[in-house]
């Protein structure tokens, strides 16, 4: 007599079976094997976000120590004296250039300003007033020239420089990268694996066995959630250790946001993969879905920079909601009630995508 397994596929007749021999365990184990035996996947999920964060972090960290390059016309009288005067400001880096070289340097942006000492003792500044660094260089260079000529400031000034963790660009971009990573691994991780199995007729072969279809899909989610923990810890850990990015919100609430976000993107990935028969069709659809969000959802700069007219659309995109919730938690220490709006958007995407995917999904 054959017994009929329950809807979950783990009926009472399996209770005596070893844990490792259960189909959900086997399916999930093989998900992991297929993942770590693909070095490219490991790179894109774990290494790439760190490289990106490191690159951006270094690029914007060095900005503070930036010096503005200034050209002094070499053929002008007293050129060397003026150069030495400008060099006293450590934020300026003057060099002597002849007429054509200085004009070229200004045109290409290599220098922000050209200082031309005139024969009558006055000074001429050539710069582009439309460029902020040109105007700043004009002010700094003029102060340096005037001070060197003997001007004294009537009011003494004292500079205290402050770098506040949480307000730098790296602080802004780390939650953005985390959101982008959750989206990429959810949609790619699930979508490609499902479409690949369908293309190879493996889905068809599996449904010809007594395998529970729910367990098959669950194995993807279990793998996703395990990788999620590693992804989040690696990226936020890197940000905290290398750049001192603060984690101001509650960690368990951050975990809840990441979990919901990952499930939501996985459901979206499943929806994208529910019918596609070829990898080309699937990657086209994925790019169609992800590209607008990479641009609009505020990964690298604030989504509020886009016109007010399209803000209603931007705010209901899943990645915008995820990044808003992550930034509020990580940078402002906001509680779940403060991010209720984006969390509702995330959950809505999760429910709608999953229900649609279940309706549309093709096993053959």
């Amino acid at each position: 007599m054959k017994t009929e397994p329950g809807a979950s596929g783990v009926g009472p007749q399996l209770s005596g079976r070893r844990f490792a021999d259960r189909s959900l365990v086997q399916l999930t184990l093989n998900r992991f094997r297929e993942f770590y035996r693909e070095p490219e996947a490991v790179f894109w999920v774990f290494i790439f976000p760190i490289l990106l964060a490191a690159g951006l972090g270094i690029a914007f960290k060095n900005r503070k120590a930036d010096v503005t390059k200034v050209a002094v016309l070499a053929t002008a009288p007293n050129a060397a004296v003026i150069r030495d005067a400008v060099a006293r400001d450590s934020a300026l880096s003057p060099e002597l250039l002849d007429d054509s070289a200085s004009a070229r340097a200004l045109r290409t942006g290599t220098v922000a300003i050209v200082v031309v000492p005139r024969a009558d003792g006055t000074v001429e500044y050539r710069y582009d007033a439309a460029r902020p660094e040109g105007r700043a260089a004009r002010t700094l260079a003029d102060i340096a020239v005037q001070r060197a000529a003997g001007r004294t400031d009537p009011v003494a000034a004292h500079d205290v420089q402050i770098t506040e963790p949480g307000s730098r660009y790296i602080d802004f971009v780390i939650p953005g990268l985390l959101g982008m990573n959750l989206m990429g691994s959810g949609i790619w991780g699930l979508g490609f694996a499902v479409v690949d199995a369908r293309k190879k007729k493996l889905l068809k072969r599996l449904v010809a066995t007594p395998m529970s279809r729910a367990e098959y899909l669950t194995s993807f989610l279990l793998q996703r959630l395990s990788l999620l923990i590693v992804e989040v810890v690696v990226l936020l850990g890197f940000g905290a250790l290398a750049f001192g990015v603060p984690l101001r919100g509650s960690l368990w609430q951050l975990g809840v946001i990441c979990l919901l976000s990952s499930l939501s993107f996985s459901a979206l990935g499943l929806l994208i993969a529910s019918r596609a028969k070829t990898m080309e069709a699937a990657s086209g659809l994925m790019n169609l879905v992800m590209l607008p969000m990479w641009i609009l959802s505020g990964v690298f700069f604030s989504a509020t920079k886009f016109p007010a007219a399209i803000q209603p659309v931007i705010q209901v995109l899943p990645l915008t909601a995820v990044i808003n919730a992550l930034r509020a938690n990580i940078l402002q220490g906001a509680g779940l009630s403060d991010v209720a709006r984006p969390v509702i958007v995330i959950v809505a995407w999760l429910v709608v995508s999953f229900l649609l995917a279940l309706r549309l999904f093709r096993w053959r």
Partner: protein
Amino acid sequence: MHGSPLHVPACRSLAYVRAITVNTTTQMREALRVASLTKTYGDVVAVRGLDLSVWAGECFGLLGPNGAGKTTTIEICEGLLEPDGGDVEILGRRWATDGRQLRERLGISLQETQLSEKLTVRETIRLFRSFYANGRSVDDIIAAVQLEEKRDGRVGQLSGGQKQRLAVACALVGDPELLFLDEPTTGLDPQSRRQLWDLVEKFRATGRTIVLTTHYMDEAERLCDRVAIVDHGTVIALGTPHELIASLGAAHVVEFAVAAETPLDVASLATLDGVSDAAAEQGVAGRYRLRSSELHRAVPSLLAMLGTRNVPLTELTTRSASLEDVFVALTGRHLRED
């Protein structure tokens, strides 16, 4: 072009064969019964009113050319496709009501499945084993399909024959009562085909039922207790390979060729001493095929006639009649058009 006399006796004796088969087996248990099955894809009718009965314990073959409707038929039986009409009963059950139990009792190997290349042989079989409530041990199956040496090798590194044996291993791991094999040896080298045949014969020896599709007549002759020849979505002949060949009325085939400029009259070839019937090969001028039960009379009389007419012979072969000849006799076409 081919002689019509060839058809009449063939069809008559096939009907006789069918009657015999049904009479001698009515008391046996049916593992699979298919009645008036139809399936249409758009304008293309893949299966038109197909009937089948497969007895428990036999190896049953669906033999036919590509596009005859074999795969559609077997996939409907496997519960992977919905028929447009007709009835399928497997192991006394139906897909609509007993799908879950049936899955536990069937073993299936599809035509084009690519198993995950990054898993090992053992991991793959263990995964499939985990789907079944009861079944054979993983090591037992690996030994049965002779993949012990590849146990820990990646699926991606297996040869075509080894991959096919792994596919059969995944079908056998649930210890099925009924095994479906769709084109099990297509594209394999001769040695791999023989290894797969051994595997099927061993399973058959345990008293289980096998339904397979093939377009190789030698495979059907070697493996199958009974064969249904399928063409254009219906069964056009049914019987044991021996019965089907015997229904041709002649045990031998003489094939010969003469220069295309000197065509021969098929009707006069058929009247030669020792020849039961004659046909011109379709599409190739100057090639003919004779059937004979007495080669020692047919060949000399053919040579004598050609000598008298001074028609030079360019090729002459004789062989035993095969299922291919049955198909040719019924349809005028070859199983493999190449």
